[in-house]
């Protein structure tokens, strides 16, 4: 994210789109409540009346997958009314003229027709966002998990730049990261196109730097993503090493994924539990939990934080660090690291943005990157005075409707996501007694009118079927969802929501469209 979590408390307007922070990021929600207590306005955009929407000043329940029409309508009004930050655009950005032409190709009325929000309301929220002294944008996977997810993000960045809401303490763009170290996994180059600190694999100078440091020839061709590797099982990809990930539950169209997992010539899974994915492995290596290891995690505000070993791993399980060193050495690499701190000093040398992040400096509060040298205090918010690339570039977003929309055969919208008690594929949280006591069964949220029509009561069995498969979940009757829509969290192995989801990807980010597909919903007769 461009800014820091606590900066949100000082924002005059917080525009939350495709995030249910009240359930998924409760600590961040605390800062949003502080902003509201101080008189700030919170606007939530989400097809569902989520917990964060219920607590907001304004909720826009748009039609699924119409984020760009809504944002284009808002920006049209901002431009028409002269509410944009002309000075910021002139001094700090480029590409505005072409972008303006795109926006002027929209009308507020056309936006309203597509996203299902009244024109007057689109104008009202546009004015609130643009007129506030400092406005922040908060988004999550409701934005990214669409076939045009990266364009959705582009449109949000355009909105922020249009109003000069970048580079100050309480403005900015906040993508909320989910897992404890998803930020760090990206920062460390666990991505097919970049080395640590987002250094491109296609850049010959960067490649040469890593070849020299690692003493091995490297490839300048971007690799395959998770979804692509699973799809290439037994053809392009023959051997796969999975460290603590569970694609058998987390990927779209899991029936197909499960078939693929058995097609690898050799599959190694390193995990702390026999996950749904580990069952398909030829070799299972027992790793360690957060309580059993030293190292660093990086949170969503780019803050490196130390984790310290409290106990030993159980039985003969080992720290993941040690397993990787053993395997690296067995493959003939020089992986003779004494400790995670030893690895960090190599990171300091090769990743300029983390050059000054040493264990000695981390202590209790951590450090936020960029932090290029040991004298640098770390960076609380990005793009102050100057964008990282120089000038902020306005990019025209390209709206693409969801790939699979309801039709006669599959007349309902399916939306999948998270809920407060569980985490991703539930490998950990389903095994935590307190959490499983909160919610222990798979469910689907449906509207009360639909429930009446289906003749299903609270907790009654619903069969949900898509072109890819079928599951049975308990009915949770709530007017948080609109008629004709069902929301199913994906944490439950006994009814895998991803049996139903559409594997269509955003072509640029390769993110699957988890937020919209078409299903049929029926009462399951017992």
């Amino acid at each position: 994210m461009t800014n820091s979590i606590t900066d949100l408390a000082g924002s005059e307007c917080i525009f939350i789109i495709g995030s249910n922070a009240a359930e998924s990021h409760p600590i961040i929600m605390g800062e949003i409540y502080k902003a509201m207590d101080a008189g700030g306005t919170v606007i939530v955009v989400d097809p569902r009346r989520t917990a964060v929407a219920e607590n907001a000043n304004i909720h826009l329940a748009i039609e699924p997958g119409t984020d760009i029409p809504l944002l284009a309508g808002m920006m049209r009004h901002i431009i028409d009314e002269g509410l944009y930050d002309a000075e910021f655009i002139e001094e700090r950005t480029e590409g505005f003229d072409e972008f303006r032409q795109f926006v002027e190709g929209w009308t507020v009325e056309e936006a309203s027709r597509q996203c299902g929000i009244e024109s007057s309301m689109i104008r009202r929220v546009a004015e609130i966002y643009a007129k506030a002294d400092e406005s922040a944008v908060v988004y999550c996977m409701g934005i990214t998990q669409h076939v045009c997810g990266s364009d959705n993000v582009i449109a949000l960045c355009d909105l922020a730049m249009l109003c000069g809401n970048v580079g100050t303490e309480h403005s900015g763009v906040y993508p909320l990261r989910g897992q404890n170290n998803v930020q760090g996994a990206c920062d460390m180059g666990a991505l097919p196109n970049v080395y640590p600190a987002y250094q491109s694999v296609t850049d010959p100078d960067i490649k040469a730097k890593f070849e020299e440091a690692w003493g091995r020839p490297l490839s300048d061709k971007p690799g395959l993503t998770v979804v692509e590797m699973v799809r290439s099982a037994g053809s392009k990809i023959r051997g796969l090493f999975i460290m603590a990930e569970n694609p058998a539950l987390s990927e779209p169209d899991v029936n197909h994924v499960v078939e693929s997992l058995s097609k690898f010539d050799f599959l190694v899974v390193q995990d702390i539990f026999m996950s749904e994915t580990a069952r398909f492995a030829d070799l299972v290596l027992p790793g360690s939990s957060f309580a059993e290891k030293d190292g660093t995690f990086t949170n969503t505000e780019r803050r490196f934080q130390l984790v310290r070993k409290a106990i030993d791993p159980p039985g003969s399980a080992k720290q993941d660090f040690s397993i990787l060193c053993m395997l690296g050495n067995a493959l003939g690499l020089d992986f003779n690291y004494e400790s995670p701190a030893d690895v960090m000093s190599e990171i300091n040398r090769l990743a300029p943005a983390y050059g000054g992040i040493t264990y000695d400096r981390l202590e209790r509060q951590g450090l936020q990157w960029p932090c290029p040298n040991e004298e640098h205090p770390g960076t609380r918010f990005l793009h102050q005075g100057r964008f990282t690339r120089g000038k902020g570039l306005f990019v025209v977003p390209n709206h693409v409707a969801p790939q699979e929309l309801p039709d006669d055969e599959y007349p309902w919208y399916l939306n999948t996501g998270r809920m407060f008690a569980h985490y991703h594929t539930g490998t950990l949280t389903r095994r935590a007694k307190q959490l499983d006591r909160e919610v222990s069964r798979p469910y689907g949220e449906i509207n009360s009118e639909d429930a009446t029509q289906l003749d299903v009561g609270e907790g009654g069995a619903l069969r949900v079927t898509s072109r890819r498969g079928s599951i049975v979940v308990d009915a949770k009757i709530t007017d948080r969802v609109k008629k004709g829509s069902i929301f199913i969290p994906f944490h439950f192995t006994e009814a895998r929501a991803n049996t139903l989801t559409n594997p269509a990807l955003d072509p640029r980010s390769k993110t699957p469209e988890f937020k919209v597909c078409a299903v049929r919903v029926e009462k399951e007769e017992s």
Partner: protein
Amino acid sequence: MLLKVVDGRVVDTLPDRESVVGNGHLCIKGWSAHEFVHHPDRLTHPLVKKGDSFEQISWEDAISLAAEKFREIAEQYGGDAVGGFSSAKCTNEENYLFQKLIRAGFQNNNVDHCARL
């Protein structure tokens, strides 16, 4: 976040008042984070698939088996036939080593994790 440890077992989770991030707060998952640590389902030995079931194997044998199989695949089909999923739950240092292992070990960039999911 602080852990309360008694005789080598984590028995409770506590919020850290000095943390600028949590500021003395935890969410429900944080308060429950210690519960899965000692779960009886924890994996405690390397396991190798024999037919439809798993058998225990020593660390030494497990590591040489993994290295040998991956090397065989790389020799037969080329380094591009090997890939890896790193983890958003593991540390920065582990993620760094993981991507280095794939990139330097097999001369390709087939490394990713679940950020998009």
